[in-house]
């Protein structure tokens, strides 16, 4: 039985998403352990320019390049994935638990009657057994999960779960042509990509998050400036989103987005459980809060007890200088 691995490549605005390179890096490591092949699966339209970027990361690239796959739709993408999976019989299919991944993979799993473990943060393969690490109950518990009674398993991972390791393979490119058609029961009327220029919140390496302590929407400018210096994103607590200071797409937490950047800085965020559930897998957490007893200090690596309006200008200048020196 094949132990080959598929990694589903996600594109956004014409480039490959960072999370796909993370998955390719992990997939390569697993394929080496299993002495199997890693396939990068690239679906889309006019994707030729992207193929070279993937080559060092995979053994083979399955490319389906057709106008029908230009924009993601579950109907065409599920059909294409089903076709490729039936043809190549991979043992593991890896994807990201992004908006697209959360839409595509459950549908695909049902189509194939294959088990799916979603929103995982780690994976190990030991003598034939797959062990998947997945937080549940908002990160209060870590579960280790495996699959059984199946030749194939699907796993989706949170962005930022693995580091990117550029390989030195020169993947063979296989062009696949397939018959697919759109489901006529769904018609896209309009696509609005409002904030698409921004770094994706879930993929950002750096997030500076403002809470109610920011006092008003105008004060988020300085957070935007700091985010820009570090190439990151501004996040917000629910209190901020509910007050309409920021959009819902910026919300970090249980009812917002789960993020795990390298560095999270919370400013005027109290650290309510519903908030920390969405950020406590961040690598390093810094909290700025004037209340020394704020809950967020229980989750932070570093804390500054002070008025954020004194700290933020100094932080902005300090980081600016740092970047200029570099």
């Amino acid at each position: 039985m094949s132990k080959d691995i598929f990694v589903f490549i996600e594109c956004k605005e014409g480039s490959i998403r960072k999370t796909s390179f993370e998955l390719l890096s992990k997939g390569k490591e697993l394929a080496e352990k299993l002495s199997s092949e890693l396939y990068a699966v690239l679906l889309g339209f006019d994707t030729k320019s992207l193929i070279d970027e993937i080559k060092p990361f995979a053994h083979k690239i399955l490319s389906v390049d057709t106008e029908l796959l230009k924009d993601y739709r579950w109907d065409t993408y599920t059909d294409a994935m089903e076709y490729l999976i039936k043809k190549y019989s991979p043992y593991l299919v890896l994807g990201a638990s992004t908006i697209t991944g959360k839409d595509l993979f459950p549908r695909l799993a049902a189509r194939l009657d294959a088990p799916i473990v979603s929103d995982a943060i780690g994976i190990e393969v030991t003598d034939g057994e797959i062990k998947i690490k997945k937080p549940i109950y908002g990160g209060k518990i870590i579960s280790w999960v495996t699959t059984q009674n199946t030749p194939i398993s699907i796993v989706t991972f949170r962005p930022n779960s693995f580091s990117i390791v550029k390989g030195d393979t020169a993947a063979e490119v296989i062009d696949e042509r397939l018959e697919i058609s759109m489901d006529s029961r769904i018609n896209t009327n309009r696509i609005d990509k409002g904030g698409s220029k921004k770094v994706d919140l879930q993929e950002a390496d750096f997030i500076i998050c403002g809470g109610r302590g920011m006092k008003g929407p105008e004060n988020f400018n300085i957070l935007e400036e700091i985010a820009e210096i570090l190439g990151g994103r501004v996040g917000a607590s629910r209190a901020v989103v509910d007050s309409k200071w920021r959009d819902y797409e910026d919300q970090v937490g249980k009812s917002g987005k789960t993020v795990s950047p390298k560095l999270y800085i919370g400013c005027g965020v109290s650290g309510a459980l519903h908030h920390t559930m969405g950020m406590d897998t961040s690598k390093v957490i810094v909290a700025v809060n004037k209340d020394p007893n704020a809950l967020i200090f229980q989750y932070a690596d570093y804390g500054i007890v002070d008025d954020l309006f004194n700290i933020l200008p100094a932080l902005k200048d300090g980081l600016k200088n740092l970047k200029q020196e570099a």
Partner: protein
Amino acid sequence: MNILVFIKQVADTEARILIKGDNRSLEIENKYNLNFFDEFAVEEAIRFKGKVKDSKISVCTYGGKKAVEALRTAIAMGADQAYLIDNTDLDTDDPLITAKILAGFAKKEGFDLILCGRQAIDDENGNIGAMVAEFLKIPHVTAITKLDVVDEKKIIVENDIEGGKETKEVQLPALLTTQKGINEPRVPLITGVMKAMKANIPVIDPVTLGLAKESLDRNASKIKILSYETPKGRPPVKIIDGETPEEKVKKLIKLLREEAKVL
């Protein structure tokens, strides 16, 4: 029109959760709620019913006997009927099984529109909606933030996509999962609560839904929990002191560079 809403009862986010001695099961404090994202689904069903004459809302869950409480919450909000598909002794962690059962129920009950929350906040899977739709061979739309009725055969929905929103026309029957922002779920009125308390909630044996018992139990599950552990806690916070904000920030940046190595 027949509107089905699939819901789940989940542990409250504040509930204490302990890992039992065998590392394979959990002890959950007795604090349960209707899943956060499912409240939007129930609310949207009620609003839909207000727009389309002769609609009926049935809510259903595949869960333990206790899950009847979440069904009653949905009735108190305004659902017409509730069903409990009893999973006693059949509790598995495989969403494929749950989705097959719910699809079986939908086929038996009949439906024009199915709503459910975009994900459960306990296992955080978010698989059930698209899976049920696939088993029923109907279209699905995930994480909708708007639902408009065109006529009895067609709706227009808006949903989250990468970096934005998409608006699409969808033919019914279809399955939609609800995202925060679509509506403000109502707080049940006392009359609703009274009605819910008195409501007769049929208990359905899953084997009556066209699936063999052997295909539903732990041995049939394609997902197996190996163990649970508590996440590694962080070391205690280092509070950075200093005379001035500038001094504190300077120290912080130094630590982030040299100790944490993230800058």
